[in-house]
């Protein structure tokens, strides 16, 4: 395919030093982000999805965190080799990020307009004061905030949760980035507001043609938003492909388990409700992961090989364009 690859991550490994010794939160992650496409990263808490995102922005706090291996190439250049000064020209400018909790990500003592203009001050300093202000108004208009001329003079506490997330998106998009990283952008919002924000992000993706990395734990959101998906478990990608392939035919028992543990409306038609299928047990602690596959203790399909000395399964092509890391993939 002739799609333009914006970001290439290979064998990314991130380690954190803790009181109880080092833990590897991300253990060799490969990802590609294409122009105009949305890549979804799904996983439960502690799966390493946010750490992966923060690594791309080089925002891992060091110490205690450290990227110990791998590379992150943005348009051919390795971000991990860049000086902090060079990184600053990329962060917020070429690659922007929005976070889960819009209230804690906005500064409460500055007006919304000020905070958007700050981004422009850093990355587009050639613009005049008037131009910057107009651009801030245009950005608020773009993300669907009514009466933007008035709103830029308001403070975050005067806005609702959905409005704040729109402001965050406006800030992130102010410099027309190539890549937008969205870390659970709708998790803190109500469903009707979530629907509005998702719709907005899809519209903006088409309009601006950026690549999006969408981090979430909600498979429903993935199905509606993403082109490709990577499922993470305990620091590794366990399954990756385009969205419809993964949903139609998951190879990894974890992916299947995740899909089945969501109640669906269709199954409630009959009188007796079937029990929800669950994944047994819980996510193991990163301090004491089992040998072999990290999912073995919860896996209904586990065989001896999974517990063996061979180490964790590698991400391999199970069908064209569809990878899974499993010794005993589902048929």
């Amino acid at each position, binding site marked *: 395919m002739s799609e333009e690859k914006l970001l290439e991550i290979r064998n990314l490994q991130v380690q954190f030093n803790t009181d109880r010794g080092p833990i590897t939160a991300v253990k060799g992650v490969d990802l590609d982000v294409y122009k105009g496409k949305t890549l979804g990263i799904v996983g439960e808490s502690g799966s390493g999805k946010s750490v992966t995102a923060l690594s791309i922005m080089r925002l891992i706090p060091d110490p205690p965190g450290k990227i110990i291996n791998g590379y992150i190439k943005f348009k051919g250049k390795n971000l991990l080799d860049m000086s902090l000064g060079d990184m600053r020209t990329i962060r917020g400018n070429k690659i922007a990020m929005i976070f889960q909790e819009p209230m804690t990500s906005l500064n409460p003592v500055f007006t919304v307009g000020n905070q958007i203009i700050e981004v422009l001050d850093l990355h587009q300093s050639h613009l005049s004061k008037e131009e910057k202000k107009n651009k801030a108004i245009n950005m608020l208009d773009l993300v669907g905030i009514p009466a933007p001329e008035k709103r830029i003079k308001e403070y975050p506490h005067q806005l609702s949760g959905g409005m704040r997330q729109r402001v965050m998106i406006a800030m992130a998009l102010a410099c027309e980035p190539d890549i937008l990283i969205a870390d659970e952008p709708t998790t803190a919002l109500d*469903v*009707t507001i979530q629907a509005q924000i998702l*719709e907005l992000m899809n519209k903006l993706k088409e309009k601006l043609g950026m690549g999006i990395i969408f981090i979430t734990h909600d498979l429903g959101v993935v199905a509606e938003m993403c082109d490709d998906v990577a499922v993470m478990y305990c620091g590794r990608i366990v399954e990756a492909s385009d969205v419809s392939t993964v949903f139609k035919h998951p190879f990894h028992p974890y992916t299947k388990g995740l899909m089945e543990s969501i*109640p*669906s409306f269709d199954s409630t038609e009959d009188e007796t409700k079937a*029990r929800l299928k669950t994944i047994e047990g819980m996510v193991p602690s990163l301090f004491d992961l089992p040998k072999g596959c990290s999912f073995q203790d919860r896996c209904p399909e586990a065989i001896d090989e999974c517990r063996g000395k061979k180490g964790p399964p590698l991400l391999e092509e199970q069908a064209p364009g569809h990878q899974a890391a499993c010794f005993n993939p589902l048929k």
Partner: protein
Amino acid sequence: MSEVLLEVKNLHKRFPIRGGILGREVAAVNAVNNVSFKINRGETLGLVGESGCGKTTLGRSILRLIEPTSGQVIFNGKDITAMNSDEMRVMRRKMQIIFQDPYASLNPRMTIGGILSEPLDIHKLFRGKEERRKRLYELLDQVQLPKDTLNKYPHEFSGGQRQRICIARALAVQPEFIVCDEPVSALDVSVQAQVVNLLMDLQKDLGLTYLFIAHDLKVVEYISTKVAVMYLGNVVETAAAAELYGNSKHPYTKALFSAIPIPDPARKSERILLEGDIPSPMNPPSGCHFHPRCWKCTEECKVEYPGITSLSGTHDFKCYNPIEKGQ
């Protein structure tokens, strides 16, 4: 006909807002507005709505953890709003609550054994040493936790396990009715399913009655016998779970259902996108509170709050322009 365990009649909770140097009342929030419903023994009423709609206030007013402004809560034939604090304490044995955040609702300095014993001490139940120990083991068994849990502290457990401990604490005094206030919202999906299954098993085994509060319609629909939808302090629609999904009458219910992302990429649902935000409950819109966001709004809606329309006695809604089936 099964027996009614809990009946809420015209419950109202008003929070005054005071301002100025004299502390005069300048405004008020009607967090719960004239809400009535019944829950049959052994059944689950699901309560859904977005943040700020009053669902938590309603749950707590029923237990009188927040004192309702007016209205009645009739539990087992007795009006508990008229009880004094001694009578109420006895009553609370029958009515328990599970909170949303299992990290905040367990005392970090108490062992699990201490946490589970506390309600038993208060209500003077299972007082013998041996008897007490047996009861605690039984509780752990009911929520599927190992016996050595008793000597551990809350920080040693994951979110899902803590929520099991909270459930065990609620069960300790053998209640008949439990308010579950967003019990699975803070949990991961795979763990969420385990806790939902556990709650349903316990209901079957112990004959419990739940008021299940959540914003996740999928979970509510799954666990509930009947579902009530709230918007800005008012219950706008009540119906059996499957009926509510298949035959939503209130436009807000319809919009809520259609806003849920469906985990199936092939299915492109026709989404009803609601305009705007939830209005401030301090200053709700005139007439039907939903009218500024409603696509079926007429002049009538702006003037007066619609009354209850009842379909076959089990499906109630408050709307002038309900959605026709198949629309």
